């Protein structure tokens, strides 16, 4: 038997027990087994995949439309998220909110954070998104050597950001 991640023979067999999926056996070579064990046990991709499948069964004909939906900030499509299980930016939680909520219920049985909160608020999701957009714009400005515009954007970002951040980082973040 071969390792699930490479061509080497599988000498380690890891049983993952997740509720409600039941035991799942995975086969790895020595190196990948160690990598897998050291990686903290997060719910496997199958958890997202099955939650999505359940949810998409209800979506039906609209799936194609949903798949094409794109985040205006980072450009990720729902299709890409569905395939990778990873989102593209914080704004996705706002842009895909109604599509993600059933998934959150399937995975966490909840859609409401009740734990720790940062003492400083980053403002609304819109302002977070604007910062990412500005950052892209700044990088583009640097690319076309429009340093005046880049520095304007940098000031704008600074103003939106936390006042506590050390001033010494300014040159570092854009150089």
């Amino acid at each position, binding site marked *: 038997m071969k390792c699930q991640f490479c061509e080497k023979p599988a*000498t380690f067999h890891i049983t993952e027990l997740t509720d409600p999926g039941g035991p799942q056996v995975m086969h790895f070579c020595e190196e990948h087994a*160690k990598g897998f064990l050291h990686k903290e046990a997060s*719910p496997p991709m199958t958890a997202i995949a099955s939650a999505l499948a359940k949810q998409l069964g209800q979506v039906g004909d609209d799936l194609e439309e949903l798949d094409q939906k794109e985040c205006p900030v980072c450009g990720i499509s729902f299709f890409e998220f569905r395939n990778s299980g990873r989102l593209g*930016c*914080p704004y996705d939680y706002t842009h895909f909110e109604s599509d993600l909520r059933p998934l959150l219920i399937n995975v966490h049985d*909840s859609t409401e954070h009740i*734990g720790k909160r940062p003492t400083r608020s980053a403002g609304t999701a819109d302002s977070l998104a604007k910062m990412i957009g500005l950052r892209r714009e700044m*990088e583009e400005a640097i690319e076309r050597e429009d340093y005046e515009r880049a520095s304007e954007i940098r000031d704008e970002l600074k103003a939106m950001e936390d006042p506590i951040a050390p001033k010494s980082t300014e040159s570092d973040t854009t150089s």
Partner: protein
Amino acid sequence: MKRDADFDKLARYTGQWMRGEGPESDIVISTRIRLARNLADFPFIRRCSDEDRLSIERTVRARMESLTDNNWSAAQYVDLEPLSEIDRQLLVERQLISREIAEADGSRAVAFDAAEGYSVMVNEEDHLRIQVMKSGLDIKNTWEQVNRIDDMLEEVILYAFHPRYGYLTACPTNVGTGLRVSVMLHLPALVITEQMDRVFRSMQRINVTVRGLYGEGSQYTGDFYQVSNQITLGHTEADLLALVGEEVAPRIIEYERKARESLLKNNRDDLHDEVSRAMGILNTARKISSEETMHHLSKIRLGISMGLIDQLDVKVINQLFLQSQSAHLQKLQGRILGRAERHARRASFLQHHLAGKGDTTWN
């Protein structure tokens, strides 16, 4: 922060969390808690350009350097991108970084303290993965430390946070608290008495993941299991910590204790025989794989905990678990070794240390 990590020196030491001390340390190897955090003004890693990753790494490093906390200024900051494969592997074996970040491309880094009690990965699946590890079952102190580091970083880094969904993460399975608490357990008696299935069944429906490692067929059975929370949203950190640390782990520990008692009462000779054979193989083999090593070390660890072996300290066994791994062996030898060479080197390394000739070094 120091930026001159000495990997040759690192390989000779064992992190504090491997001392085999702390509550329930005859059964619990370690407690680990990690928090996933992202910067508010960058896309998640998947949609980051190379420049974005570089900016994140530089921003985080500069902000960390601005911290005046004494513990923090003594931390090592290691840029992973220019590091050799063997040095990255060494950090994986020490559990300071994940295999994913070791094998990834682009700007990425890790900061950790000299005792290796905490590490902060930069540009893993999330921009920041803050983790604290302690020996034994020590949820309270582990949480206090990771929470303190999080508070400290939050003073200089603006986190992506949503009032309704909490700390925003690249994968929706981590959103909310971004917290994963993992307890690593050594459960040889439950394995020998074939009770693990029962344990697994009893864990169903309580939002925990139990992950076990075992070897090929019946030849090698590994005895290490990791218990962690499965969900991160809709519960407070305190609830998630209590679920794993007060509800699930103590129950499994109790099962293991009972199984050990019954083995001592009913099968003492068989057990003693098995432990002695494990010792015999490690003391005489001329070449040995790391799977086989782990299998025998596990039995010896059980033998020490149950008083069947008295001339060895569990610290030494923990050290051997770490240093008999490939990157450590090669680092200690001072050169790259082929597979056959590694097996031979591992065998002589084990004999040397089991005979008490090795120096057990702690930082």
